[in-house]
C-alpha cells in the first residue's frame, strides 16, 4: 500500500514538477535566511553571517540531485529534463544543429532510400507459395559451349521429369504469349502466359474473384476460357465487376473467349528467356492473361516449353539438379533431337533478383559509405563542440553533478540530434524513392512495386540511433576523464584539444577522405564508361527517329495484312516532315528479334541438335536501311516487289559475311530456315554492321528478311523526320487509324529514348554515385576544414610563441598546410587502396574502362588533393593572423 502511495506521489510530482523545484529553492532560501539571522544574533556581521550560512549548507546542486532522485519517477524525469536541456542547447547554436542534422539526414536518407529499393525489389519474395522451393530449369549445352540463343524443352521431356523425378513435387511447362484485346477504338496489347495443367497448383496462386481453370479446360485446341491479371483488369477494364462470364475478343484467336476469373494482384511473369526477343516482353511486368494449354500430341518433341519445378521439402537444389541431369541423359540416349543439352536449375528468386542485385548492391555499398562519412563528420563536429564546452562540463562536475549523469546528458544531446537528423533523413528517403522511381523505372526491375513504407521508417530510425551511438560515444566518453580543476584553472582558453584528440580527429577525417575518394573513383569510372559508350560507333543513326509498335490485330490473311501495311506506310510517308517510314521487326536496342536455327550454304550440316546455328533474324521494309543510315556494302537492298509471289531473299550484315564466308563474296549464297530440302533464301545484299543488340558489344551476325515475305505479327513503325518527333505523333496515329481503326499503337518512343533505356541501369548507377560522391565530398571538405580550424584554435598559444620568437607568417601558414596535406594525403592514399578493391563490384557496368583505370584514379586523386587544399586555406589564413602579443596573454 505504502509503495503504491509513493508511486502515486512520485507520478504526481513529475506532473507538477515545476512547483516542486520552486518549493525546494524557497526552502533552501529560508534555511539560509534563518541560519543567517541566527548567526547575526550570535554576533557576526551580515556578510559574515550569510557566508557562514552558505558554507554550512553545502553544495546546492548535490542536494537538488538527491532531492530529484526522491521527488519523481527518476529515470523518466531525468530523460525529460535532459531532453529539454538538449533542446535548449540545440536552439542556442542553430548553425551547429543544422549542420549536424543535415549531415546525418543525408547519410540516413541515402541509405534508407536505397534500402527501400532493396526491400521492394530484392527482399519481397515473389507472390508464390514457398517461393524458395521453386526452380527454373533452363537448357545448357552438355559440352559447356555457350549457346547463340536460348532453347526450351520438349513436352515429352518435362512430362517425363514430372512422372519420374523423386526429388521434385512437380514440374510444369509454360510459354509466353503476346496478343491484343480487340477494341474498335484502338486495341490494347496483352502479355500472357500459356500454362500447363500443373502450373497453377505448383505455384500456389489464387484468384480474387471467379475460379482457376478446370482440368478439362487444358487442351491443344482453340482457347475457350481465360483468367485475367488483376492489374490488367484494373488498368484496362476499370475493375469491372461484371467481367466474370463475359466474352472478350483477342487478336489471332478465331472465336471469343470467356473470362472465368481474375488473378490475385502482383503476379508477375516467370522469366521466359526466349520470349525476351519479342517486342513488349517484360519479365518484370504483371501478367495480363492466363491461358490453359496442354502439349500438342504432334509436337511432343519440339523444344517449345519453359519449365518450372518445385523441389520436395528438405531436398536441395543440387540434389534435384543431379537427378534431372541423369534423367535427361537417359532421354537423350533414346531420342536424337534431345542430344547435347542438359538442365540447369536455378531458384526463381535468384533468377528474378539477378539484375536488381547487380544494380542495388553497389548502390547500397555507396549509400553505406555516405552514412559512414556522415557519422564521421557528426562525431567530429560533436567532438569539437565537446572540447568547446569543457568548461561548462567542468563547472557541472564541480557543482556536484555525477559523471554518469553528465554522460547521460551528453548522450541525450547526440541522440536528440540523431533523431532530428533521422526524421529529416526519413523525409528525404521518401522524396528520394519518388525520385528514383521517376529516373530509374527502366533501370531497376520491378521498381513499380517499390514504396517507401514503414520498413524504411524503421530502418531510418535504427540507422539514426546507431549513428547517434557512434557519433556521440567518442566525445561523450571524454567527460569520464575530465579533470575539472585543470579545465577551470585554464580560464579563458576555449577549446583546447589534446594531442590524442587531434590525432583521433585526423584519423576520422583521413577515413572520410578515403571513403569519399572510393565513391569518387566509382563515379569517375562510370562517367568515363558513359563517355566511351557515347563515343562507341553504333553503326547507325539514332537522332530524329521516332518508333512505335503498330499492330494490325484483325486479319490473318497475308494479302489483307500486306495491304494494311502498304497503305499505312504510304499515308505516314506523306505527312509533312517525314523523310522515310518503314516497318521493322528488330529495331535496335529493344532486344527484339526472332531467334531461329538456320542452315547456311557452305557450312557443314549440324549433326547434333545443339550444334545448329542459331541467329537473330529481323524483318524490314525496303526504306529501313536508308532510314537508319546502315550503308549498303554489296548487292541490293530489299524492293517492294520482294513479296510472297517471288522467291525469298535475305540481306546479311558484314559480321555475318565475315563469320561464315570469311571474305568471300556472299551475294547469291543461300540460307535455309526449314532444312536444305526446302527452297532456301538467296542473299541479295550485304550491309554495314550495327551494334543493334547492345551498344557495348561488337556487332553480331544478322540476317534481315523481307517484311513482305516474312509477315511478322509484332513490329515497329519507324519514321525519320526533319522536325521535332513529338509534333507528328498525333498525325501518325490518325493516319494509321484511318487505315484500320482497331490498329493498336503503343510504346511511342524516339530511338534516342530507346538508346537511353538500354543504358538506363548504367545511367542510374552513375547518377546515384555522382550524387553520393558530391554529398561525400562536401561532408569531407567540411571535416577537413573543421579539423584544421580546431588545430589552429588549440595551437594558438604555440603559434603565438612561434611568432614571438621570429617565425614568419608564411611559416605559420606552412605549418597548418602541412598538417592539412598530411590528412588529405593519407586519405587519398587509403582511398586509392579502397577504390581499387571496391570498384571491382562495378565491373558489370563498365565499358572499355578497367576497374583499376589509372587515369580515373590519378584525376580523382589530384582533384581531391587540390580541392582539399582549398579547405585548408581559411584555417591557414587564420593561423598567420595570430599575433605575437597573444603569447604574453597566456603566460
Amino acid at each position, binding site marked *: 500500500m505504502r509503495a503504491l502511495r509513493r508511486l502515486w506521489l512520485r507520478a504526481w510530482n513529475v506532473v507538477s514538477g515545476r512547483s516542486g523545484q520552486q518549493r525546494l529553492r524557497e526552502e533552501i532560501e*529560508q534555511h539560509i535566511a*534563518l*541560519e543567517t539571522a541566527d548567526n547575526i544574533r550570535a554576533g557576526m556581521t551580515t556578510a559574515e553571517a550569510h557566508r557562514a550560512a552558505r558554507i554550512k549548507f*553545502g553544495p546546492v546542486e548535490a542536494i537538488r540531485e538527491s532531492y530529484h532522485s526522491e521527488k519523481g519517477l527518476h529515470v523518466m524525469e531525468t530523460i525529460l529534463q535532459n531532453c529539454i536541456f538538449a533542446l535548449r542547447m540545440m536552439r542556442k547554436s542553430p548553425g551547429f544543429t543544422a549542420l549536424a542534422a543535415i549531415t546525418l539526414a543525408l547519410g540516413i536518407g541515402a541509405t534508407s532510400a536505397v534500402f527501400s529499393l532493396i526491400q521492394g525489389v530484392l527482399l519481397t519474395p515473389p507472390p508464390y507459395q514457398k517461393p524458395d522451393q521453386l526452380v527454373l530449369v533452363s537448357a545448357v549445352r552438355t559440352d559447356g559451349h555457350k549457346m547463340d540463343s536460348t532453347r526450351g524443352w520438349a513436352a515429352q521431356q518435362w512430362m517425363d521429369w514430372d512422372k519420374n523425378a523423386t526429388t521434385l513435387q512437380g514440374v510444369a511447362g509454360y510459354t509466353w504469349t503476346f496478343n491484343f484485346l480487340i477494341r474498335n477504338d484502338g486495341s490494347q496489347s496483352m502479355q500472357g502466359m500459356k500454362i500447363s495443367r500443373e502450373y497453377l497448383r505448383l505455384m500456389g496462386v489464387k484468384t480474387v474473384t471467379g475460379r482457376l481453370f478446370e482440368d478439362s479446360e487444358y487442351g491443344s485446341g482453340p482457347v475457350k476460357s481465360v483468367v485475367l491479371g488483376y492489374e490488367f483488369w484494373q488498368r484496362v477494364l476499370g475493375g469491372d465487376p461484371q467481367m466474370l462470364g463475359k466474352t472478350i475478343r483477342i487478336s489471332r484467336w478465331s472465336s471469343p473467349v470467356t473470362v472465368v476469373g481474375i488473378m490475385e494482384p502482383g503476379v508477375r511473369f516467370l522469366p521466359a528467356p526466349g520470349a525476351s526477343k519479342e517486342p513488349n516482353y517484360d519479365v518484370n511486368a504483371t501478367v495480363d492473361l492466363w491461358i490453359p494449354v496442354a502439349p500438342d500430341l504432334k509436337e511432343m518433341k519440339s523444344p517449345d516449353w519453359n519449365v518450372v519445378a518445385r523441389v520436395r521439402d528438405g531436398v536441395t537444389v543440387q540434389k534435384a539438379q543431379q537427378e534431372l541431369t541423369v534423367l535427361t541423359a537417359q532421354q537423350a540416349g533414346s531420342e536424337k533431337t534431345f542430344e547435347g543439352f542438359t538442365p540447369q536449375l536455378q531458384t526463381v528468386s535468384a533468377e528474378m533478383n539477378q539484375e536488381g542485385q547487380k544494380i542495388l548492391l553497389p548502390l547500397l555499398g555507396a549509400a553505406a559509405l555516405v552514412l559512414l562519412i556522415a557519422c564521421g563528420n557528426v562525431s567530429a563536429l560533436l567532438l569539437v563542440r565537446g572540447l568547446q564546452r569543457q568548461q561548462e562540463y567542468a563547472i557541472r562536475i564541480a557543482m556536484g553533478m555525477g559523471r554518469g549523469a553528465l554522460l547521460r546528458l551528453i548522450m541525450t544531446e547526440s541522440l536528440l540530434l540523431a533523431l532530428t537528423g533521422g526524421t529529416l533523413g526519413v523525409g528525404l528517403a521518401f522524396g528520394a524513392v519518388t525520385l528514383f522511381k521517376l529516373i530509374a523505372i527502366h533501370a531497376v526491375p520491378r521498381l513499380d512495386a517499390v514504396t517507401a513504407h514503414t520498413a524504411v521508417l524503421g530502418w531510418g530510425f535504427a540507422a539514426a540511433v546507431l549513428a547517434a551511438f557512434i557519433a556521440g560515444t567518442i566525445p561523450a566518453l571524454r567527460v569520464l576523464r575530465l579533470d575539472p580543476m585543470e579545465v577551470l584553472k585554464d580560464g579563458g582558453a576555449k577549446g583546447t584539444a589534446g594531442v590524442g584528440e587531434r590525432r583521433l580527429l585526423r584519423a576520422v577525417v583521413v577515413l572520410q577522405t578515403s571513403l569519399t575518394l572510393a565513391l569518387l573513383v566509382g563515379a569517375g569510372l562510370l562517367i568515363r564508361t558513359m563517355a566511351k559508350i557515347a563515343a562507341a560507333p553504333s553503326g547507325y543513326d539514332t537522332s530524329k527517329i521516332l518508333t512505335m509498335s503498330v499492330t494490325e490485330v484483325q486479319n490473318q490473311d497475308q494479302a489483307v495484312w500486306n495491304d494494311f501495311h502498304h497503305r499505312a506506310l504510304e499515308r505516314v510517308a506523306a505527312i509533312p516532315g517525314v523523310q522515310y517510314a518503314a516497318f521493322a521487326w528488330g529495331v535496335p536496342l529493344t532486344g527484339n528479334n526472332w531467334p531461329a536455327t538456320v542452315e547456311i550454304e557452305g557450312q557443314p550440316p549440324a549433326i547434333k541438335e545443339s550444334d545448329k546455328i542459331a541467329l537473330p533474324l529481323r524483318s524490314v521494309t525496303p526504306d529501313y536501311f536508308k532510314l537508319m543510315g546502315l550503308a549498303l556494302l554489296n548487292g541490293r537492298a530489299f524492293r517492294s516487289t520482294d513479296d510472297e509471289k517471288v522467291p525469298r531473299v535475305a540481306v546479311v550484315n558484314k559480321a555475318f559475311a565475315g563469320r561464315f564466308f570469311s571474305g568471300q563474296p556472299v551475294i547469291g549464297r543461300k540460307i535455309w530456315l526449314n532444312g536444305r530440302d526446302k527452297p532456301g533464301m538467296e542473299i541479295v545484299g550485304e550491309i554495314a554492321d550495327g551494334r543493334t543488340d547492345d551498344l557495348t558489344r561488337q556487332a553480331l551476325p544478322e540476317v534481315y528478311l523481307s517484311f513482305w515475305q516474312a509477315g511478322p505479327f509484332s513490329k515497329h513503325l519507324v519514321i525519320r523526320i526533319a522536325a521535332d518527333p513529338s509534333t507528328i505523333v498525333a498525325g501518325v496515329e490518325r493516319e494509321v487509324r484511318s487505315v484500320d481503326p482497331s490498329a493498336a499503337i503503343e510504346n511511342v518512343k524516339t530511338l534516342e529514348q530507346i538508346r537511353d533505356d538500354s543504358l538506363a541501369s548504367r545511367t542510374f548507377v552513375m547518377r546515384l554515385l555522382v550524387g553520393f560522391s558530391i554529398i561525400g565530398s562536401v561532408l569531407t571538405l567540411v571535416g577537413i576544414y573543421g579539423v584544421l580550424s580546431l588545430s589552429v584554435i588549440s595551437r594558438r598559444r604555440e603559434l603565438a610563441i612561434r611568432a614571438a620568437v621570429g617565425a614568419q607568417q608564411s611559416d605559420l601558414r606552412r605549418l597548418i598546410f602541412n598538417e592539412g596535406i598530411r590528412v588529405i594525403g593519407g586519405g587519398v592514399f587509403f582511398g586509392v587502396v579502397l577504390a581499387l578493391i571496391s570498384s571491382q563490384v562495378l565491373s558489370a557496368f563498365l565499358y572499355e574502362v578497367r576497374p583499376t583505370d589509372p587515369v580515373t584514379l590519378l584525376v580523382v586523386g589530384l582533384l581531391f588533393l587540390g580541392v582539399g587544399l582549398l579547405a585548408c586555406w581559411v584555417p591557414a589564413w587564420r593561423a598567420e593572423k595570430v599575433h605575437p602579443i597573444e603569447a604574453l596573454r597566456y603566460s
Partner: protein
Amino acid sequence: MAQKTDVKQGTLALMVLKTLDVLGPLHGYGIARRIEQISGDLLSVNQGTLYPLLLKLEHEGSIDSDWGASENNRRARYYRLTKVGSRQLQSEVRDWQQTTEIMARFLTAKAEELG
C-alpha cells in the same frame, strides 16, 4: 524484522520524528537546530540529507507539511507529525530501546567477563 538501512539516515529519521513529536510543527532549519542542540552540538545535521529525508518521510505519509510564518515573520515550510508518523515513531522507538538494551547488556557482560 530489522531493516537494512543506512544507520546514519535511520537515526536521522528517528530524530526528526521525535523532534516533531516533542516540539510540534517545525520548519527544516528549526529541526536541524534542535537536533544539534539536543545532541549537545555533538551532531551536525547535513542539509544535503535532511531535505531529501523530509521529503521521503512526507511521501511515506509520516509527516505532513504546509507553508506558515516563522518566528520572525518569514514564510517557511512547517512539518508536523501525522498519525502514521506517530505509529512509526512508537515502533521505531521500541526497536531502538530494544537494540540499546541488548547492546548495553552485551557491552557490560563483556566488561565483567574481561574483568
